[in-house]
């Protein structure tokens, strides 16, 4: 018997788009170093340039404003490290303002980098969020000082899907003389992004969240913005990211972006309807649930829900036994005692964070998948609740 497999963890990563897989297979034999002047090198360089143009035009940028990096994490590390550079007396002498303003709900690659930079003399302000995961723009304005080098606010949250008002946040940062970065890893390829319209100086994107290969991302750096590389030692990417180009990965990213530009709009409508059905079905069939995140300003592909009296890792594993893949904000799954920093930042009780799961939809999901989940989930929750010390206790 083949068990039905329902993948609802697209915010973690996505399967390769078949068209991307085809392009990668064809490109596999191209081995030239894009830096070489001969025909082999020129062929590779041509493919990298084509991918760069695709990524650039997808976000309304110039090709020269796009740097290919090894991951979203690398892109984010690179932007924040511009400040570390000043603090450690780097000879590039670019940025002298050692204060970072970011949010409490960023991805760990922003939070951990910020923590590391604090040890090297930078100062970091973490903006809190409201119960829906939104930052307060007034608090942002008040936090930016003359010493603020960069403001970094994620576009869409990976756990709860909440969208921030990036355009307004960027405007405030510029008004007060700071540069603005947005981690758009979750938003990129799901909602339309135009860097000029948003007015950002830096933007991070990743390929594997949009049906492209792992190990490649893109960092947008607005023309004219001062920049110090994180990885030194080569002229690749106009001297902004040393290391021989991951040609295959870059080609894959280019193709995945091309497919996004063709499919994104139709898919968004379909996914919105899947999410609505999933949400309504859970509400209807399972008592004592809470939906986490913003009711309207959210990625339509992300549904984060907490179940009273049920612990997230148990839910995840019972679902896994039914072939359904989700993730959880519970502490147990991470092997620490602390539940998701994002859910905790929204001020919810710890129990609600422990009882959360995140379902993230993608292009492969169908209404049958949603029905299958709605068929299995209620039984799993009531089974866990029957065992629970905290649910229905007299």
């Amino acid at each position, binding site marked *: 018997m083949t068990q039905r497999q329902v993948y609802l963890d697209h915010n973690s990563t996505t399967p390769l788009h078949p068209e991307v897989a085809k392009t990668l297979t064809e490109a596999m034999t191209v081995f030239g170093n894009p830096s070489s002047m001969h025909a082999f090198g020129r062929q590779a360089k041509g493919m990298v340039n084509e991918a760069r143009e695709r990524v650039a035009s997808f976000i309304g940028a110039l090709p020269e404003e796009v740097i290919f990096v090894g991951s979203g994490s690398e892109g984010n590390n690179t932007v924040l490290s511009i400040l570390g550079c000043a603090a450690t007396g780097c000879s590039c002498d670019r940025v002298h303002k050692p204060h970072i303003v970011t949010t409490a709900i960023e991805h760990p690659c922003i939070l951990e980098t910020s923590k590391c930079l604090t040890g090297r003399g930078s100062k970091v302000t973490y903006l809190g969020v409201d119960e829906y995961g939104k930052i307060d723009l007034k608090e942002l304005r008040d936090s930016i000082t003359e010493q603020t080098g960069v403001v970094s606010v994620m576009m869409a949250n990976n756990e709860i899907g909440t969208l921030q008002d990036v355009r307004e946040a960027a405007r405030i940062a510029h008004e007060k003389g700071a540069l603005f970065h947005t981690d758009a890893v979750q938003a990129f390829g799901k909602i339309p992004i135009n860097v000029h319209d948003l007015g950002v100086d830096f933007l991070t994107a990743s390929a594997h969240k949009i049906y492209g290969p792992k190990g490649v991302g893109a960092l947008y750096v607005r023309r004219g913005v001062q920049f110090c590389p994180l990885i030194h030692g080569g002229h690749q990417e106009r001297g902004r990211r040393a290391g021989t180009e991951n040609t295959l990965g870059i080609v894959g990213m280019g193709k995945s972006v091309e497919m996004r530009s063709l499919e994104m709009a139709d898919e968004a409508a379909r996914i919105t309807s899947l999410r609505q059905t999933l949400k309504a079905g859970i509400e209807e069939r399972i008592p004592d649930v809470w939906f986490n995140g913003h009711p309207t300003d959210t990625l339509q592909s992300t549904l984060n829900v907490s179940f009273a009296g049920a612990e997230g890792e148990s839910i995840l594993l019972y679902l896994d036994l039914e072939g359904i893949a989700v993730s959880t904000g519970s502490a147990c799954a991470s092997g620490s005692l602390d*539940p998701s920093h994002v859910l905790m930042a929204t001020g919810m009780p710890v129990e609600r964070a422990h009882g959360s799961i995140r379902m993230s939809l993608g292009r492969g999901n169908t209404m049958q998948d949603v029905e299958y989940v709605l068929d299995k989930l209620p039984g799993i929750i009531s089974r866990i609740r029957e065992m629970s*010390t905290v649910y229905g206790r007299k």
Partner: protein
Amino acid sequence: MSAHQSWAYTDIVKDHFMNPRNVLKDDDYQEDGKGMVGNVQCGDEMLVVIKVDKEKDVITDCKWKTYGCASAIASTSAMSEIVTGMPLDEAFNVGPKQIAAALGQLPENKIHCSVLGDKALRAAINDYYTRSGRPDKVIKEESRIICKCMNVTDHEIEEAVLEGARTFLDLQEKTKMSTVCGKCKDEAQTLLKVYMKKHFG
């Protein structure tokens, strides 16, 4: 990909998780002793109730409820099987090591969950002694403050070891101990060795 490939626990853990034994379902269960430990804020809470053959001081039935992860469910289920039919004195000494062994193995960072099952059982046994008018048999688990600045006990150090602390730095990070005056450092390092030996041989 089969579900089996993605399973992080042993088959025995999986079996207990899928078919938990001795779950307390009867709201009117007439227990002889009851113990509850942990709390939902930490992510795990366990309730253990026992029935005792009062002539022989032997556990005749052990039921439980838990709020927690797969490891918490499986370890409490396994423990309930281990201690049913066991004399109270022996059951009192069942520890996390024995429970983990019965499950094949548990990931190290999950062992703190199984520690809760046996703790709840000891609380239930003590409760039985109290209820049956033998308070002299109650064995209190005394804890000793090791770090006076941060008020950290030997029990907390043991917990930290069970949760994966392997070095003095880990202990400092997990418990915040020895981060002020530093006088307890030597004792902490000794205890670290003791608990490592106790739980991981």
